[in-house]
């Protein structure tokens, strides 16, 4: 159902173009470099205390690749439907796998993990609503001349735009930056995926990420990250997690 009525097609391989926060994304920032992060004093102190070399040595480098930050790492992502109700995002940076569940059920959540549990929903534009479309693709009630959907006029029986919203919870604690900036297990990540097309046709998706961490952040931490569609999968190069 959700694959069938996807308002945007995010599948394929995409590469992030790093034109923002270059110094803290392409490099591991120095200890105490917190620029752009709305950290509480306690979070800063915690970041200054932690020994990231020890974290690395103990095999915990992937804690810097959790859902709050994994889309921010330079790299490529493969997006594909695992089934009609689950979209899968595979990152080459840190070899992470995310699953975005459209029919989210609390029972599926399990133990907290770095990628947490992601509940997904389409947010449709132009009044489209799949509940108002029958199995043949016709608008329910259209034969009677009734108006369907919201907005002005008769809504489309096919989605004509929209976006993906993802809310991720059930997270294990990790690091927002490789220099030890922490996020807590109480963190919620809300993401919005929008698809953009250049005049010449090149496609991008922009993911707006809102990190809410009542323990470490004074206000929500909001970023937007740009991914350009790749012509093929040839440059997808899985690399292990690293703090260097």
């Amino acid at each position, binding site marked *: *159902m959700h694959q069938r*009525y996807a*308002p*945007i097609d995010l599948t394929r391989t995409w*590469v*992030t*173009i*790093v*034109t*923002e*926060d*270059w*110094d803290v994304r*392409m*490099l591991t920032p120095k200890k105490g470099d*917190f*620029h*752009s*992060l*709305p*950290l509480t004093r306690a979070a800063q102190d915690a970041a200054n205390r932690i020994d990231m070399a020890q974290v690395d040595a103990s095999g915990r480098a992937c804690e810097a690749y959790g859902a709050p930050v994994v889309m921010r790492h*330079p*790299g*490529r992502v493969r997006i594909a439907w695992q089934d009609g109700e689950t979209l899968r995002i595979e990152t*080459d940076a840190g070899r992470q796998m995310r699953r975005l569940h459209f*029919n989210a059920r609390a029972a599926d959540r399990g133990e907290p993990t770095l990628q947490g549990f992601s*509940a997904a*929903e*389409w*947010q*449709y*534009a*132009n*009044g489209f*609503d*799949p*509940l108002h479309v029958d199995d043949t693709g016709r608008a329910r009630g259209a034969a009677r001349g009734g108006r369907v*959907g919201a907005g002005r006029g008769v809504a489309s029986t096919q989605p*004509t*735009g*929209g*976006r993906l919203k993802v809310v991720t919870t059930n997270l294990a604690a990790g690091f927002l930056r490789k220099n030890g900036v922490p996020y807590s297990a109480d963190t919620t990540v809300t993401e919005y995926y*929008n698809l953009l097309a*250049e*005049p010449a046709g090149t496609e*991008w998706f*922009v993911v*707006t990420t809102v990190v809410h961490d009542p323990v470490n952040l*004074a*206000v*929500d*931490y*909001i*970023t*937007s990250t*740009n991914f*350009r569609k790749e012509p093929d999968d040839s*440059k997808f*190069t899985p690399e292990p997690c690293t703090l*260097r």
Partner: protein
Amino acid sequence: MSARLVEHAQLSRVLLLILLALVWTTRPATAQIDFDIVGFWDQPALGTVLGPGNAAIFGFEEDSTERADGPTLVDYLGIPLNVEGRARALAYDSALLGVPEHVCMRHPSQYSYWGPARLRIAAQLDANLDAVSYTVAGTFRRADRTIWMDGRPHPSPFAPHTWAGFTTGEWRGSTLVTTTTHLKWGWIRRNGVPSSDQATVVTYYTRNENVLTITWIVYDSLYLTEPYIKSADFITAPRGVSAASFDVEPADRTNNFFGLCFPREEIARPEPHYVPHYLPGANPFMGELAMKLRIPAETTLGGAETAYPEYREKLRQGAPSARGRATITAPAVVQPRPGEPAPDTALDVLKVQGNVWMIAGADGNIAVQAGDQGVIVVDTGDGTMNDAVIAAIRRISTKPIRYIINTSASAHHVGGNAALASLPGGSTTGGQRGALVSVIAQENVYSRMSRPDANGATLFPAVAWPSDGYYAPRRGLTFNGEAIDIVHMANASTDGDSLVYFRGSNVLVTGDLFTTTNLPMVDRAQGGSYAGLLSALNALLDIAVPDDLMEGGTYIVPGHGRICDEADLVEYRDMVYEVRDRLKTMITDGAMTAAQVKAAHPVLGWDARYSRPAWTADMFVDAVYPEFASRTPARPGATRGAAR
């Protein structure tokens, strides 16, 4: 009702509930949501400590230090700069923002959402409540953007460019997509990384519940090897935010965040028209960021590859010349031609302001002032489109042409003299009033046009020659109730250049002293000089007065190209000034040969923008080389009247 019927009804009710539950659990997770972008939008973390300096004031959660206090100098990381863009960026001295010609510069649309900004977005509605336009206000120094939604076309390529540019838009699904053209020269990073007036910006506005994400892509083949993408986030401002509270620098009302800025000197200048800049290879900040970040100096110079994930591998391996100053080689510039307007069979007639129009497309630009007394024409094009030019003038006014003023003897500007001067009309002054159209020019123009060749022939017929030459430094005329200054700019492009200033309309006509299409045109055989041209540009700047925030005010009709204002003239003057210093260093001080100078690319940074097959960078070097080699550049005025 029997017990069986009741039981059946209850069963049906239970089945219905089960069915509804099944439908509910398998229904798509969907919501009808608000995509509208109208409202107040703030930085995400206003007032939160985000790092050193003023980052907290501005509250951005990406590149907070860069966007508040400004980026590190020579930080071009992630920018797909080409060699020309890098050369211009490295020439940038931040003291430039301390001189009056630049101090009030607005943040242009190539950049403005990345700078300090608190947005107010409003919609203007038609009778059907459809949006005719949106206005986006609140970027630094208020280059407010109007987004036209009514399908109107973009203006003529000869129309003025602005800091905000001209923008049209359309909704595509949940995203407002806009296209901006007609931009001024500006920057894409606030440390001198340039963006040209040929750039186009495509912007995508997406409202993600209470977050507005604005993504923009800059297309500028003059300075970038591939499109440059950025995105910025804003959150819904708290209720009760008013215009009065919409100011982050209330303490300084003379130089505040959104408006008011009075051009003033903020640095001591060694000369009145000093242009701070660095010569090639002399930027003292080269390598500074590299030391701080412990990366190769070359990396800080940007380039498309520095934005790709795989560049990290190069960083891990170390670069060829790590740490320290990098040298920049200048490969041959291969760039597409810029999109400057080219002559067409159809002329373009544009109102400049006041009583002045511009006719474009007849090679050199033609300015027309019209009123009750008749018509003055400044320059007449190259003469190949006389009928169309006359028809265009008649569209402006049916009154007779009284005067022609020539800004020089260039065939691009006097070619139509004969046709226009032969029309019924006649001047309103002088001994031949009412009989002939009077052709006014500096006396050297007469000499050039009327001088016979070896066979006794002249380039132009006698009717085309100036009938009213002037010798004095300036000539004044009042026509159609407007004072008009005609001022000789000695030994500039030639020895007979005049600027024409319509005081009431506040329009300057420059002839070939200033164009938007060519490298500086210096014709030494006709008495021109580089020093004189630079002096003339400064003289033009002394007349032109910008309106608020370096836009509008005095408008300028250049010899070729689009209508300009002072900021465009400043940009061109800066080029002439900086190239002058490069040529002096190479030729006068360095004793380089002409071939060596050409190989050193003295106009790198402006070559692709201004070089033309008819006037290439090499031709330009050949033209000006003797002046710099002589160590005694020609003094303005040295040949005044010498050609008579």
